[in-house]
Structures are given as C-alpha cells and as structure tokens.
C-alpha cells in the first residue's frame, strides 16, 4: 500500500514536470507581427527614443506602427535578445554587444555596412563635476592629483566604464612622449583615486548626484541630460577624449518596418531629435538648440584630439581582449592589483 502511494506521488511529479515545461515553451515562442516593432536598447536611450518614435509615427512609413520598448544595461539587453527576447532592432552601448548577436545568428554579419558603419549615436567621455567646478578640473591629468575623488562604473561589469578607461589610457599613451607603460601608470593612479565603482553608468550617476566624489567619468549626453534636469552639476569636455559610438542593428527576423525606422533614426530629423537629447549626430549638417549643454547653441564643441577605438585601439575585438579579458586583460590586472599598496 505504502509502495503504491509513493508510486502515485512519483507519477504525479513525473507527469506534471513535462506538462508545465511544455506550457512554458509554447508561450515563449511568440514572434513579432508586421505592424509592431520591438526596440531593445541600452538604458540611456529611454528618454531619447520617445520623441524619435513619436516623430516616426507621424511619417507615412510609420503611421500604423506600434512600438514595444525595453531598456537596460547594454550587456544584459544583448544577452536577453540572445536568450530569446524578441527584438526587431537593437541599439546598444558598444559594438561587442551587437557582435555577440551576430555570433548567435540573430543579426546579419553585414549589419555595419551602411553609411555610418552601423553607428546610430555618438558621444564623448567627459568629466561631470560639482556646480562651478570647485576643484578647477580641466584635463585628465587633474584627475590623478592627490585627493581628487573620482567615480567611474566598474569596467568588469559596465560597457560605459570601458569607454572611460580607454579614454584615460589613450590620453596617457598618445600624449607626447607617451607609451603603454606610462598609460598603465596613469590608469593605475586614476583607479587609486576612485572612491566608488558602481556596476553601471546609471548607478554611478545616481551615486554622484547623491553627493559622492568630485568627478564622475560620464558620457557627454548623460551629463547634458543631468544638467537639463536641473541637477547641480557642470561638465567639462577635455581637450583630448574618446569618441563613444553606439551601434544599432536590425535583427534577421525583423519586420520590414524596422529598416524604415532605422532609416528615420539616421535621417536629419531623427539625428536632430537625438542631438536634442545630448547625443552627437552621426551625420553632418545638424544644427539645433540643446538644453542642458554648456552652450546650448553650440552644444557639441569640437574636441581637438579625438581618439577612437578603431583608430587608436585597433577595434573593439582587439581592445576587449587586450584590456578587459577576465584573466589576462591589462585593466583587469590593474584592478586585481589595486589591493597592493592602496
């Protein structure tokens, strides 16, 4: 009797598991339809995309299209799409996050063969400081002075931090008489001055706005948005910094309207709207007022020496391995060694 009851229990369990699992599978296999676009983007885009989407819906191509959007940390978003989150277009913080979708067969490998090399929005690495810049921060060298408290997200977990650290590296490596050894010293000093390493760019901004630190390494567009929102901060565009390039791509099973939307985003109208949100346009001839910029009528001053990942680091593939590999990366090693002598 007891044996039989145990058998019933086991049978019930055995029957229930596949039933429930197959139920899950059936519901997760949903796919998009032609008049619905699913946009998966990195966190900062949330506010920037809203006006672009509503402007697109006023055009002929976009008038019957409805949107679902999802925003979060770039790496998380990329993994979510690879893991089955439906997306017609992805707009991510850095190229490797799109590359991993190419590897997963979800984005065609020709995605970056358009007029802007697959890039949809640009920005640069800037210094966000307290209102009035009380410490007189002007250049990268000011950040490594004793007692300056720097905040940057952690490059081990955040894409935006990688831009920051590479910018600092380029500053020291490309300066007259600069080399890799000097760059390593410089970044080590910078990280010793770092008082907080939150795991994402938005956490770092929140920490800075709560009063932590003297300088936050940030995107220019984030800084413009913070100023426009009335936060008590200023931002400094240094004379040499790194160009941040955010890629966008259409997925292989995207609805036809996705290409129309991407074209609109890259059009004069779309880029003007992104510029208003603080992003540097990827096409020429955009002139607009940008509230929150240091000079709203000349919002994006030309940076005398602008580094790029392609030109100065040989592309993301190489830079990622060389600097951020979890065992042998130069920056990983510097962070691992922070304990010594700190």
């Amino acid at each position: 009797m007891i044996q039989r009851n145990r058998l019933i229990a086991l049978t019930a369990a055995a029957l229930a598991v596949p039933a429930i699992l197959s139920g899950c599978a059936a519901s997760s296999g949903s796919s998009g339809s032609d008049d619905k676009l699913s946009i998966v983007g990195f966190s900062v885009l949330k506010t920037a995309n809203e006006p672009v989407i509503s402007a697109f819906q006023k055009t002929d191509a976009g008038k019957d299209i409805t949107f679902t959007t999802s925003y979060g940390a770039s790496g998380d978003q990329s993994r979510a799409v690879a893991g089955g989150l439906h997306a017609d277009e992805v707009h991510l913080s850095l190229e490797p996050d799109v590359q991993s979708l190419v590897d997963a067969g979800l984005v065609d490998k020709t995605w970056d063969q358009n007029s802007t090399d697959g890039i949809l929005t640009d920005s640069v690495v800037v210094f966000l400081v307290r209102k009035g810049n009380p410490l007189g921060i002007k250049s990268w060298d000011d950040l490594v002075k004793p007692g300056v408290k720097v905040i940057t997200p952690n490059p081990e977990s955040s894409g935006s931090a990688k831009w920051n650290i590479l910018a600092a590296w380029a500053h020291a490596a490309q300066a007259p008489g600069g080399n890799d050894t000097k760059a390593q010293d410089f970044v080590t000093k910078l990280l010793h001055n770092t008082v907080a390493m939150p795991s994402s760019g938005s956490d770092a901004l929140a920490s800075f706005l709560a009063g932590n630190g003297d300088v936050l390494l940030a995107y220019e567009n984030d800084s413009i948005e913070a100023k426009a929102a009335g936060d008590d901060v200023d931002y400094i565009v240094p004379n040499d910094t790194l160009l941040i390039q955010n890629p966008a791509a259409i997925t292989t099973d995207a609805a036809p309207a996705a290409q129309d939307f991407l074209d609109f985003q890259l059009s004069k109208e779309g880029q003007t709207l992104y510029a208003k949100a603080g992003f540097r346009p990827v096409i020429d001839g955009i002139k607009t007022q940008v509230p929150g910029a240091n000079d709203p009528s000349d919002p994006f001053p030309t940076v005398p020496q602008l580094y790029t990942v392609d030109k100065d680091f040989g592309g993301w593939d190489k830079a990622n391995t060389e600097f951020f590999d979890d065992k042998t990366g130069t920056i990983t090693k510097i962070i691992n060694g922070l304990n010594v002598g700190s």
Partner: protein
Amino acid sequence: MTTAVLSQDTRAVGRGRPGVRSTLTKGSALGLGIAMTWFSLLVLIPLAAIVATAGDEGWHGYVDTLTNPQSWAAIKLTVGQSLLVTGINVVMGTLIAWVLVRDRFWGKRLLDLVIDIPFAMPTIVAGLVLLGLYGPRGPLGINVSNTPASVTLALAFVTLPFIVRTVQPVLAELDADVEEAAASLGARRLTTLRRIVLPSIIPAVAAGAALSFARAISEYGSLVLLSGMLPYRTEVVSVRVLSFIEGGDRTSAAALATIMLGVALFVIVALDVIQRRMARRG
C-alpha cells in the same frame, strides 16, 4: 520551529529510528508529489544547474575563483559582515521582540508595523534612503558611504526583521506563570531569564539568525549605491558574481555562487546544531 523539534522527538521515542517507515496516505502522497514538483521546478533544478555550470572547468574552476585575490577579498568581506550583522541581529532583534511583546508603550502598534518595512521595501530604495541619511550629504553628519561600514549598515537594515519576527510569536506564547513561579521559588531575574526564557526562545533565535545570515550573504540591491563597490574594500560576492556574468564568464560566476551556497549551508547547519545542543541543555 519548536513544534518541529517536538514532533521529531516523539517520533524518535515511538519508533526508534525516525523517518524510515512512510506514513503516506493516498491524499498526502499526491500532496507530497505536488510539493516536490513545485520545489524541484523552483529550487532543486536551478540549483543543480548552477552547480553543474560551476563544474564545467572541474575543480580548477573553484581553485581559480578562490585564489583570485579580488574574489577572495569579496568572500571574506561578505561572510565577515554577514556574521557580524547576524550577531548584531541576535542581540537587537531579540531585544526588539522582547520590548514589543512584554512592554506597553505609546506607538507600540506602529513600531510593530514598521518593523516589516525592510522586507517590503525594494532594496535599491533602501540603499538610496540610507545614502541620503548616512551619505556625504546626510543631515546627521555621519558619512559611511563607500566604506566597509556601509556594508554593515545596509545588511543590518535589510535583515533586521528576521529575528524579531521569529522570536516575537514564541515570546508571546511563553507562559508568564512559569516565570512567576520561578520568581516565587526565589529565582533571581537573571536566573529566570537564563533557565526559563532563553531555552524557549533559542530555537527561534537560531532560525531567525540562519535566515538573516542567508539573506545577508546574498544582498545586492541596497549596496548598489551605498557601498561604492570598490574592489578589496566594499565589493561583496553578489557584485563580483554580476561582474563575472557581465564579462561573459558564467563558469566563474557559477563557481563563486556554489561556494557561497556551501557557506550558507554550513552556517545554517551549524546554527541548527548549536540550537539543538542548547535546547537539550535547557
């Protein structure tokens, strides 16, 4: 907790070896089946998956994780702070439970209600509130942000209710007559506390401590903004795991998670053993 211990004891007396013969009826067999299915889907299968992923690189995956100085620092910080906070909770939680059960004062009902807020509040909000109060712009002039003390503070906040809520009902059930009898027989207050009250509440304290410790070693949200997550100083294990995942290194993430699973299991079992010892002596 007390009833569980009692029922086990009676079974032990009645049958010699507990748990060998089954008492399942048809209905309860179905119940057990459903319970086990649910438990497997939610807990056992995911846990097994974590352990399996961690084993991808064999033993050296664990050795690599443990010998990585940054991970090791994170483990030390997390376990150390969790033990410290659990210790604080054992004292403060029991005290709060005592006050709530035994004393009458203005605002008691409100306090009783507010105790649960750390449970209900999204932990990231808790972190923001703590940063506002004990951060660089805090009105109290105390700034713990980005220091190891911030980890203590955040963990103490999120784990506070555990011991209060496990001890409170046991204290409320405790018969005051017994204490009065002890007093009338000449026992001093301290003796009564030690011989009568403590033995009754120790299982509850231990259960609460186990929950509190387990919650503390896994905390993430409240530390996001408060601790600064500085490697070697304020970086806890959950942040380290996140870094591994973000970096695409799932094996290391799973290995570290499995190590913490082991630590949690060890502490929970240790607390249970201590609790049984103490209960037997009382």
